[in-house]
């Protein structure tokens, strides 16, 4: 099992990937929920445009997404410049940028899962909450959201898994800087680009699978617990 031994640089890629994926997932949760709710329950002009934009990262080749991120959120990009200047938030060539890229790539998956679950919530229950005095926002928080928790969990885990595998957009946007932006997939990619890199790639792939599987199993267990609460008959 000698080949399973990770170098310090590889360890840092592992840690970074977990950090990036977790942040990508957590940070996009609120926005994802809001957008999912809008798409599920809203009726407004431009709904299909919003829906389209959400799906864009799925449709575009990741390299293109990465390049667009580089152009807009890079140091010299419109948004990136603004954020850096006014809020001190810098994405370019930071792990935060990797998280942003992963979040963007995972966003359509997250939103779709949440949206499906929200759509499946019986509106009659929401109305019932309204008659009890709960405003639309409260109703969302205490009725719709808990009832669509399976979808929220599914959305989060999809986003996390995607983030663990995302590479095209990340490497294009924030490059492949060890310790800062070199996530597991980037490290794997680098291995595949040189002779003799296969074992290294295999090793990291195994690590990546183990982590994602652990997250998956945990999420499934969680979903089962939620589910058990509704058991009927």
């Amino acid at each position, binding site marked *: 099992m000698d080949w399973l031994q990770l170098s310090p640089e590889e360890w840092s890629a592992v840690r970074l990937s977990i950090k990036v994926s977790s942040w990508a997932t957590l940070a996009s949760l609120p926005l994802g929920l809001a957008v999912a709710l809008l798409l599920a329950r809203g009726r407004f002009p431009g709904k299909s445009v919003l829906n389209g934009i959400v799906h864009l990262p799925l449709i575009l080749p990741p390299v293109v997404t990465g390049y667009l991120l580089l152009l807009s959120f890079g140091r010299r990009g419109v948004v990136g410049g603004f954020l850096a200047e006014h809020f001190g938030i810098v994405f370019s060539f930071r792990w935060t940028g990797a998280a942003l890229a992963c979040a963007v790539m995972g966003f359509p998956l997250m939103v779709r899962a949440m949206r499906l679950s929200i759509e499946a919530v019986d509106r009659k229950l929401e109305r019932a909450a309204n008659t009890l005095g709960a405003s639309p926002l409260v109703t969302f928080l205490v009725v719709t959201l808990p009832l669509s928790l399976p979808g929220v969990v599914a959305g989060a885990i999809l986003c996390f898994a995607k983030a663990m595998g995302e590479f095209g957009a990340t490497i294009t946007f924030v490059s492949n800087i060890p310790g800062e932006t*070199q996530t597991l997939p980037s490290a794997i990619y*680098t291995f595949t680009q*040189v002779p003799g890199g296969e074992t290294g790639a295999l090793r990291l792939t195994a690590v990546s699978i183990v982590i994602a599987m652990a997250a998956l199993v945990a999420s499934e267990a969680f979903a089962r617990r939620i589910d058990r609460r509704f058991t009927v008959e």
Partner: protein
Amino acid sequence: QESLTVFAAASLKNALDEINTACEASVGKKATISYAASSALAKQIEQGAPADIFFSADRDWMKYLSDKNLTRKDTENELLGNSIVLVAPADSATSIDIKQGFDLSAAVGDGKLAMANVESVPAGKYGKASLEKLGAWEGVSKKVAQAENVRAALALVSTGEAPLGIVYKTDAAADPKVKIVGTFPEDSHAPIVYPVALTAESKNADAPKLLECLKTPQARAAFEKQGFNILLK
């Protein structure tokens, strides 16, 4: 203490990792090396990436930055050279003499000729130029399977998917599952060079030291071990 960052073509990884360690003493620190496609790296530098040194896999992307005054022209240096070779699976019985007007198409038969992308990836461009020069392109162009990069083209041959392929000598030599059928004459394509330069924005005092270190015998040995030709005598 400011970090020292190198943006290098992914195919240089093995050699550069070794040299990076070896040069730590003379430079005073270890560089952080981001390996990716030359195209991605060049565009990132254009967008203000914190790179001190750019080590490209071809002239075009170096020129791209150079034309935009993003490199220090005085440090530009075509350090390494490489050759392209025709490879076949190790168990293949094919033998071909690469010469003017040779019938590559017949050798490929019903299969495909695996190459890196002939429009965008350097190895592919060199290969196509060579075949054109040798008068073989016309016959074989319909049978070319273009991979994303040389490594992918090599994989197509080493898995037996394609009976023949055109890759760098550096890659072919290290893969026991393929054998080199022949080498393309150097004058049949533009020189295969790996230029390196300091970026215009680099203010790191250690960067020139690392650039110097790349020219030491020790470094040369490392490059040669990977099969590169040392162009800078």
